[in-house]
């Protein structure tokens, strides 16, 4: 059969060893790269990729140097499955290996699922503040709000991946077109002309003057984030209503009026709304007496859910998250003045897989080694 040599190749131990060795090189290189690229960027380039490229400075070339995490993980998965289908027959002596390898398959698949399905965001609360949404750590959105009636604000949020494409954005929910002239994923702003900066205005020089912006490379420091900015123009059927700078540096929205309706433009971290809210009652940052070594961080919150009438106190502290409605809220960070908390919100439907995988592999290894060790020791004793 044609498939046989293929199965043989994919099921070979040689391939296992090669994949594992390449995996080590990849992890080592990725770890070293974390020093310069930061955790996030390095993860994307080395581990969440099929091929790792090397881009020599000042050159348009992309030279593939290593298989990425997805490729290696995929091949290892194939290797495991092929090896078992081809070589292994199930018997008592091999039970441990079977368990360990099944656990590994589960682990690899589980991590793939996590990569695809897990969703992380953060919720930043000042003391006393209540929020019913969390925010993306990296993605932004342009919120176009009709605030004519303060009681019924209409918001249309445009995700930044659309802004990055530039051009005209139209939706049935907005009576006008949003034309993106400039959008930088990471940017710098100044209030005076400087080298490399361009005036934050539309090409026809309309729009709010007095500010200059430029694109800057992605942030590599893990403590910092990209801060995008752009210039958008509102194009109505009657013509341009004006151009505005939208920027994550600006805390307040840009406003304009068109056809007697008031609108606001705000570039903000992407929001994820929930049918319940959390209100921060108290944040505590305990240190060990006589030192500034942190002993504990904790947030006392009120969980409020109108549709079910739930209203209760919850306490989140280190190593003790809140699990609610399929999501987990962790104590992640805090404001420097100790008056605000930052919770990490994670939704991960495949969270259970590593637990099962660990059990399977651990038990499998124990079984396997014992099936060899016990007879060996018996023989020694007999000898």
């Amino acid at each position, binding site marked *: 059969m044609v498939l046989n040599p293929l199965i043989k190749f994919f099921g070979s131990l040689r391939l296992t060893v090669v994949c594992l060795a390449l995996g*080590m090189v990849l992890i080592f290189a990725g770890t070293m790269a974390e020093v310069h690229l930061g955790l996030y960027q390095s993860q994307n380039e080395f581990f969440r990729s099929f091929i790792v490229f090397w881009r020599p400075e000042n050159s348009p070339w992309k030279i593939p140097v290593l298989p990425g995490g997805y490729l290696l993980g995929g091949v290892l998965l194939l290797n495991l499955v092929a090896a078992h289908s081809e070589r292994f027959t199930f018997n008592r002596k091999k039970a441990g290996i079977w368990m360990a390898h099944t656990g590994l398959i589960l682990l690899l698949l589980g991590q793939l699922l996590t990569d695809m399905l897990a969703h992380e965001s953060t919720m930043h609360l000042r003391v006393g503040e209540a929020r019913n949404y969390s925010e993306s750590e990296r993605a932004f959105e342009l919120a176009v709000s009709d605030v004519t009636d303060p009681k019924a604000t209409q918001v249309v949020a445009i995700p930044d991946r659309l802004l990055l494409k530039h051009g005209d954005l139209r939706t049935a929910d907005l009576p006008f077109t949003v034309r993106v002239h400039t959008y930088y994923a990471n940017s710098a702003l100044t209030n005076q002309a400087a080298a490399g900066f361009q005036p934050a205005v539309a090409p026809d020089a309309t729009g709010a003057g007095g500010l200059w912006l430029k694109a800057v490379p992605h942030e590599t420091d893990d403590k910092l984030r990209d801060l995008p900015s752009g210039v958008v123009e509102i194009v109505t059927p009657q013509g341009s209503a004006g151009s505005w700078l939208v920027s994550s540096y600006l805390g307040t929205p840009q406003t304009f009026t068109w056809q007697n309706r008031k609108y606001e433009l705000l570039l903000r971290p992407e929001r994820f709304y929930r049918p319940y809210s959390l209100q921060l009652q108290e944040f505590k940052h305990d240190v060990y007496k006589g030192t500034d070594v942190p002993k504990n961080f904790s947030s006392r919150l009120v969980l409020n859910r109108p549709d079910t009438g739930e209203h209760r106190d919850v306490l989140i502290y*280190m190593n003790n998250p809140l699990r609610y409605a399929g999501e987990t809220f962790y104590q992640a960070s805090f404001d420097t003045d100790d008056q605000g908390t930052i919770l990490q919100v994670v939704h991960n439907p495949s969270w259970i897989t590593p637990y099962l995988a660990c059990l399977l592999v651990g038990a499998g290894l124990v079984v396997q080694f014992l099936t060899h060790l016990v007879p060996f020791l018996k023989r020694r004793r007999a000898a």
Partner: protein
Amino acid sequence: MKTTTPKVMKWIPWLTVLILAGWLLSTFWQPPETGFHTRDFGKLPVLLNGRIQPFDSVARNSLLQIRTRQSLGEVTADQWLVELMMKPDAADKQPVFRIDNLELLNLLVLSEKDKYYSFNDLQPHAADIDKEAQRIDAVDPSSRSVFEQQLMKLFNATQVYQRLKLTLAPPDSKDLALELASYQKLIPDGVAAVRAKEAGQKYDGTTLNDFLGYLAAYDDMSKYALPLVLPPLQDAKTRDDWQNLGANLIGLSQGKDLNPAVKNYAAMVSAYQNNRPDEFNQALDEYSQWVGKWYPVETGKGVHEAFYNFFQAFYKAIVLYVLAFLLAVTALLTFAIAPRASETLRRTAFYLVLLTGLVHTFAIVFRMVLEGRPPVTNLYSSAIFIGWGCVVLGLILERVFAVGLGAAVASFAGFVTLVIAQNLAIDGDTMEMMRAVLDTNFWLATHVVVVTLGYASTFMAGFLAITYILLGLGTPLLEQKVGQIELGKVLTKMVYAIVCFATLFSFTGTVLGGIWADQSWGRFWGWDPKENGALLIVLWNAIILHARWGGLVRDRGIMCLAVFGNIVTSFSWFGVNMLGIGLHSYGFMEAAFKWLMLFIISQVAIIVLGLLPARFWKSFHAKKPAPNLAAVVPAKV
């Protein structure tokens, strides 16, 4: 194997171990103290680094930081600390500051032959130290020159030194008890004078000045004194609400209560200042009884930790491991020539490793109880625990294959890891409190312990492989039969078994770490450098196993792979901490980096040796080609 071993030979191992055990027990005994009972003083509990500890620990850890030793030759750490806190003028003449850097010595105009210098030696150039330290403070620690690092170290040492001085008495105190009494008497008038001055009324200038003089001195004490020496008052909110002397004395002028311990400490200080040992000892006894009655837990902690410090179990274990190693190696090298003597030596070594392992275990357990923590809480204790893991594995191997290899590698690993630990302890307190994220005994007990055992077993396999390569290259011993199989085969079996264990421990430990991460911040795997390091070990062990199963490598290949495991493990254990990123980073360690590089180079060299063709090996070169030639050549002729 022998039937006629003389009785003496049988008893030698037991006798040796018994004598050494007797020596160990004898070191529990402390001769009674004459003069000032500084050793008892050293047991008093204080609060420093967020934890209760005895003065003795404060003294030793400070001396380690300042002098890189735990004593000043004849002068014990306790004696030094008491003098520093109570009679600082005398202490300033003691050579306690260690300075090795020539540039630094030049800056301070000191001769380079002394190595240790007194505070008075440094005084003329204190301003230079401060000025340089201010400048260097702004320099990123990882890009400081050797001179800059050494200067900062000295600067920090002088800071600790000066802060310790302010712990029990204000500067220039001559008789603390008397001074306190007059301060207390002065408080009503002094407060009145301050109020009068503020209200613009008449006041007595001398009273005001005296009063403000006291307050200024106590203010310095309250700001800078290092350990908190006064136990919490009865109405204190928490048990760790300890105070320093200065703060309490200032509080006195604001109508707060005098802490009862102040009187005792003042009496001790006065007695010491005026060289009256009996009064000192009496005040010390009174205070010990009082604090023991009201703060039994803290007092117990102080007494036990002082004992732990005194016993220096790890130091003694180092000595015994060296002895055991020498015995085991001699046994190993002579088993072909003098089997009986070799067996006696081997058994002595085995029992000795067992005895030392017990000391090692005792010290780890003692430390765990003192800290109320699982065995591994920081890099220092990880070194100790890795050593312990290796020793246990080695003892098991020795029990199964009684050839001296297990004992040799166990004692070697125990010795090396404890030496590493001693060097890691130089920064001071090794029982520091756990940062918030790490403050969980459950995960420290599971993930950290298991992953550390993974390190230990990978190292163990690596050390055994080194033995194989060195013995194989340098001696014909690998071909010698031990019982029914050759020594080389025994080693192969050992390495294989240990690699299996290493795979189990490192995998389970790594995944447990992932589960901890999932529990704590919702991410099973974050590609943090330390996680990656642990994963590298798992993968490497898996490679060794699969390469063996697939027949890709034979015995010598496996040995070379196992030696490379040492490099992978040392990178994961130490190397990733030097990258300074992620949740597990402990900062950059210049000196450790040099040693890590040396270690890696040495391991590469051993691998190269291991790859030499068999004809260069003393153990195998004679065997295989020769008989074949003999069989083939005559036929052709």
